């Protein structure tokens, strides 16, 4: 890992301002404003359909916002000339051509941002895939694909990193590895936005928490503050999002059900 400690960039921030995305009748992201600062892991939480992945896609310029702005390092992502050197992201571990080897998958990405092929070997080593680098990525387990996706995010040694549910499909060993990796990356002065549904894991990994519900910001807080107000991070999450669960059994949380039928 390249040492970023002295190279900490105060510009390494994610900043959303009144960000809104509408798909037809659905308001996926609703006037969302928050900031993610460097130096710690920021957990990005919310029920399915809350808009976490959409927010990340908007940040990466993949989707165009209906209104508002999503800036990385003070600029829209699409204006970055070598984006992989500033921002790394894992959105979908399955986004790979099944016939291409892990090494070539990463090399295709590295070439676009003029990153040396030696860096590909480095990140493969870092995520523990060096031994299967020449194997077809289509044959990988979900856990291996997650590691490959993390390798892709780290290729350009960026100061800002986003991970959408990277823990899915990993074995306990892999879960612990991700936890350590996230904390190390944050300690190096990077900005980390990490989404997950595993609350106990998040409590161990994140320092700050952003909670979304139905595209809106519910809470922006520190883990310490939430766990002092509630019994645990999981309790905090469940209480705060009780009215915003869009998919799932309505029985235990009557407000969500009532909310839905009256809309």
């Amino acid at each position, binding site marked *: 890992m390249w040492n970023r400690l002295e190279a900490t960039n105060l510009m390494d921030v994610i900043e959303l301002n009144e960000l809104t995305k509408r798909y037809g009748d659905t308001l996926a992201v609703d006037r969302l404003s928050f900031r993610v600062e460097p130096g710690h892991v920021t957990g990005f939480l919310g029920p399915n359909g809350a808009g976490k992945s959409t927010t990340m896609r908007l940040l990466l310029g*993949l989707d165009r916002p209906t209104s508002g702005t999503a800036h990385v390092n003070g600029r829209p992502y699409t*204006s970055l000339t070598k984006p*992989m050197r500033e921002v790394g992201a894992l959105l979908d571990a399955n*986004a790979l051509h099944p016939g291409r080897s892990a090494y070539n998958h990463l090399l*295709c990405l590295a070439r*676009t*941002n003029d990153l040396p092929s030696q860096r590909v070997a480095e990140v493969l080593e870092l995520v523990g895939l060096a031994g299967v680098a020449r194997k077809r990525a289509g044959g990988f387990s979900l856990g291996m694909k997650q590691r490959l996706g993390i390798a892709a995010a780290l290729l350009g040694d960026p100061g800002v990193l986003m991970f959408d549910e990277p823990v899915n499909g990993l074995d306990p060993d892999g879960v612990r590895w991700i936890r350590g990796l996230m904390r190390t990356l944050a300690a190096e002065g990077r900005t980390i936005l990490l989404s997950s549904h595993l609350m106990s894991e998040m409590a161990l990994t994140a320092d700050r928490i952003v909670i979304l519900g139905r595209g809106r910001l519910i809470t922006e807080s520190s883990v310490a503050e939430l766990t002092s107000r509630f019994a645990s991070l999981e309790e905090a999450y469940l209480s705060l999002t009780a009215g915003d669960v869009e998919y799932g059994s309505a029985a235990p949380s009557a407000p969500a059900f009532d909310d839905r039928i009256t809309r």
Partner: protein
Amino acid sequence: MRGVLASEWLKLRTVSSTGYAIGAATAMIALGAVWSFYVGGLADERGSVRAAAPEAGFLPLVQVSLAVLGVLAATSEHATGTIRLSLSAVPKRGVLILAKTGVVAALTLAVSLGAILTTYAVSRVIAGDRSLGFNGTAFANDLPGLLASALSVAVLALVGLGLGFATRSTAAGIVSVVSLLFVLPGVVRYLPSPWGQRVSSFMIPDLVPQMAGVRFRSGGAWQDGMLPPWIALLAMLAYAAVAVGVGYWSLKRRDA
């Protein structure tokens, strides 16, 4: 831009579908040799035959194979979801599609030129001094037709690429290209006269001989082209430009 070109070249090189498409296209050489032996045998019995040139007869095989390569260069990214990775690495969508256009055009032009020239040479060697109907002319006279054929392959590959980005579906992309090559020329011929012939002359199969300025068969009848070669060339290039333009517009406008 150089890095993006290198990346797109690597992407094409590292999937097996590229190899299959090139294999199918270069099957023209073997089929052309078989054809030349066959009509050569007929000529030995009858004295002479009027057979079609294999590099013209098997041209649709090369056109379709490499058009599929063009379609896949776009749609495999949408099918696998790697389009999001590609656009995260290269957020300027025009740069991405330009690099794909350059790589697909260069590869398909090189492959088709190689296949067509090799088929031409092999069939003339097999023909020897027999009169097979396609081997009486000098290479210099045939060259414009060979170059026009190769260009049509690259154009169809780019049409495939553009329509692939526009439809985001391999099936829809391939059907569009095949319609443009085989279905539409057959349909427009039945337009009321003189529009049938006028529109026909702008169809891709008819543009190839018109670019070379040679007589050709269209709808069963021999005819001189209606278009001067340079107009035919511009019309051919316009197919690629319009398709890639539509693909770019679609990629730019829609969420990935």
